[in-house]
């Protein structure tokens, strides 16, 4: 017999399994700037920031296969819809709210499948700055919407410290300011992770080294923008490394 108790247990175990794997994930930051939106993260080897559709991009931390599955499902939906109706009918709300969230929730609740390990940010550029939007999607199908900025990190604590830092900025940045802010937010996320990693190990937590500098020893920045004022239908552009440093 499968009791409500077992259901709660099973969900809790699955969440624990996923959270454990997300814990060490590299943080992701999205920031709206005067002429577009920016997604920035750190990558080790694999590409992480992806174009989804003309006005949509995506970046996630988690298991590579799950990150890919969500990316491909998103691209499928957007292109089928963009062709059958029109590119204007493709929206971040329809994509995340209706296409991705319900199946993720179903998969999470199904004890016979391996849970998806992923936390993702979707960014959409509107025709006007006030229409720029970010959606953060979680492995259990939960999602939240944001304007100005959005963060995704391995733990709630890391996300909180990133959000706290970004809330401190009130002006709309230009691209280079947005990159600087995003890097600071990444540093804040990494600092939280370093602090909590070292709870049992006092040697490292106060070693005074910059957690971002440490992370950059075996990772590099990866970032992309959606540009509002490009004549192209496709607004996406990966930033070159010289634009990031």
């Amino acid at each position, binding site marked *: 017999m499968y009791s409500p108790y077992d259901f709660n247990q099973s969900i809790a175990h699955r969440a624990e399994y996923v959270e454990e794997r997300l814990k060490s994930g590299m943080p992701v930051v999205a920031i709206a700037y005067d002429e577009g939106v920016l997604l920035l993260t750190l990558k080790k080897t694999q590409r992480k920031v992806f*174009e*989804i*559709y003309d006005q949509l991009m995506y970046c996630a931390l988690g298991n590579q296969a799950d990150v890919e599955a969500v990316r491909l499902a998103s691209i*499928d939906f957007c*292109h089928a819809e963009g*062709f059958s109706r029109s590119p204007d009918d493709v929206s971040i709300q329809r994509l995340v709210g209706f296409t991705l969230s319900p199946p*993720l929730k179903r*998969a999470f609740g*199904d004890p016979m499948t391996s849970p*998806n390990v992923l936390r993702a940010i979707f960014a959409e550029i509107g025709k006007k700055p006030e229409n720029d939007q970010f959606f953060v999607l979680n492995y259990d199908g939960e999602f939240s919407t944001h304007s100005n900025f959005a963060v995704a990190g391995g733990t709630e604590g890391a996300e909180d410290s990133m959000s706290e830092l970004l809330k401190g900025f009130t002006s709309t940045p230009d691209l280079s300011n947005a990159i600087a802010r995003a890097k600071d937010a990444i540093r804040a996320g990494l600092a939280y992770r370093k602090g909590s990693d070292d709870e049992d190990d006092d040697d490292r937590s106060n070693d005074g080294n910059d957690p971002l500098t440490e992370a950059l020893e075996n990772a590099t920045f990866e970032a992309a923008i959606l540009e509002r004022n490009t004549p192209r239908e496709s607004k996406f552009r990966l930033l070159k490394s010289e634009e990031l440093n």
Partner: protein
Amino acid sequence: MSLQFNATGDFSRLVSPLTPEIKAPVNASFDTHGTTVIAVKYRDGVLNVADRRATAGMSIMYDKSEKILPLDDHTLVSISGSFAKAIEIARYLRHSFKYYTRSQLQPMSLEGKLAEMTKALVQNIPMALQGIGTFVPVLSAWDEQAGEGKIYFFDPMGARFESSDFGAAGSGSAPIRGSFDYITRTKGPFAEMDLQTALRECLILLDIAADNDAATGGYAKIAPSAKAVTKDGILNLNEGELQRVLDEMQTGNTPQSLNVRAERVEADAPSN
């Protein structure tokens, strides 16, 4: 149920172009009609010139149709035959190339694009056999690997032919077929001409086609369209300046150098 996705990059597994099932009397002729489109290889790529008349039987439906359609930054398709079907296929191919590039994180190869075009034509055979919806494309591309422009023409069954110097399609193409040879024999190959010289020859060819074919639009009111595909992307020849040259040509005086401004067109290959 978990997330479903298509890992192949094959857009036709998601959607297909609108294809009505019409049980009309079979009229198995592949006559194409109502157009002249010309493609020639010039020094820096491939130039396409097309009239802008859309016809239905004896009626002129529209005199401003655009028959040279960019599929991406390195591919142009010029269409003849059923306008509705051709536009739908071009829209499908644009989405299909974008879909492939974004999902597979690499651009589709030129061979892959040609195969997609063949597939679209093969799917269209039932409509073509019913005497409606036949379209015949001429595809011009910049071949990155070979470092040169390429011209391919197709028959309505989907067969693909590569043309070494020039290609033309539509009802107005037959009357000017020999003129291409005349030009290459008397003035040298198109491949040695610069853009303005090649444009001049193509405008004259199109004028002759319009003189000989009722379904090809002349210059009197609307300038034809002209686009080129090059290493650096798609170029559009400025319509206003084309009109100026054509007005001059109407007086029987074709200038030696046209000086029509060529502007870069963003044809939207995704930037992965």
